[in-house]
């Protein structure tokens, strides 16, 4: 199960990763500038395709910079959530699995990490990612997991 974490983008109220369960596939991107810029730009340029496939991209700066949006710049337009509050906690939790300067976690609608792509942040092929997403979209949804509880 993907670790949960709370995050915010700018002035928006904090939200939890678990809020995407049952709704969207999440591509959680741990990035570090300047190395990850090519890959982040590639995701930004293809965000419309990813969104159409039911994916929410959540970009997390591993340095947890407060000015992460400004650091990414104006071009290309990056419209997916870039975590400005809570990045350190997410980076710490997911960094254990990252093992590379740039890591992408594909989290399915049930909240399970289904794929981890590690790289140096270069713009690679997008097709393997799209194929993995398509595979998740074609899976039949299992019944919802029971509520977490304590006896």
């Amino acid at each position: 199960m993907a670790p949960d974490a709370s995050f915010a983008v700018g002035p928006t109220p904090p939200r939890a990763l678990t809020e995407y369960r049952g709704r969207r596939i999440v591509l959680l991107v741990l990035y570090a500038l300047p190395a990850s810029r090519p890959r982040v730009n590639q995701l930004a340029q293809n965000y419309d395709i990813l969104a159409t496939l039911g994916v929410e991209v959540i970009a997390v700066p591993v340095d947890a910079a407060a000015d992460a949006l400004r650091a990414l710049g104006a071009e290309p337009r990056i419209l997916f959530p870039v975590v400005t509050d809570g990045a350190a906690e997410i980076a710490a939790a997911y960094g254990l699995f990252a093992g590379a300067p740039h890591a992408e976690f594909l989290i399915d609608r049930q909240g399970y990490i289904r794929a981890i792509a590690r790289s140096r942040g270069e713009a690679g092929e997008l097709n393997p990612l799209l194929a993995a997403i398509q595979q998740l979209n074609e899976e039949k949804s299992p019944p919802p997991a029971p509520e977490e509880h304590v006896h």
Partner: protein
Amino acid sequence: MRAFTAVVLINLALGVGAGWGYLFWGVRAARLERDLAVARAAAVSGVEREWRVEGVVRAILPEIGVLVLTHGEIAGYMPPMTMGFRAASPKITESVRVGDAVRFTLRGVLPNVAVTAIEKTP
């Protein structure tokens, strides 16, 4: 006598058909008139509203005079989200950069609203 009966029956059928048609279309027309009146009233009585909202600039599209902002809740209008808003003047799009935390004024008659003022926040 047979011909007379046939004529009477045909006339009766036409009369009943016309009556049902009048009823159906009459009721429908009356409903459309009511809806139109409500829509007109709403348009006339549309009140200009104004909000002060916190946000962060995500993209600037000066060619179409639009700012894309990730913003907090806009009471009575929309929840927090990332969305493009029309800027009331080019000065507004020129005064900010991507990544700026801002406080902006949104004004207009829903859904025709525009950013009329914007300032950077620390």
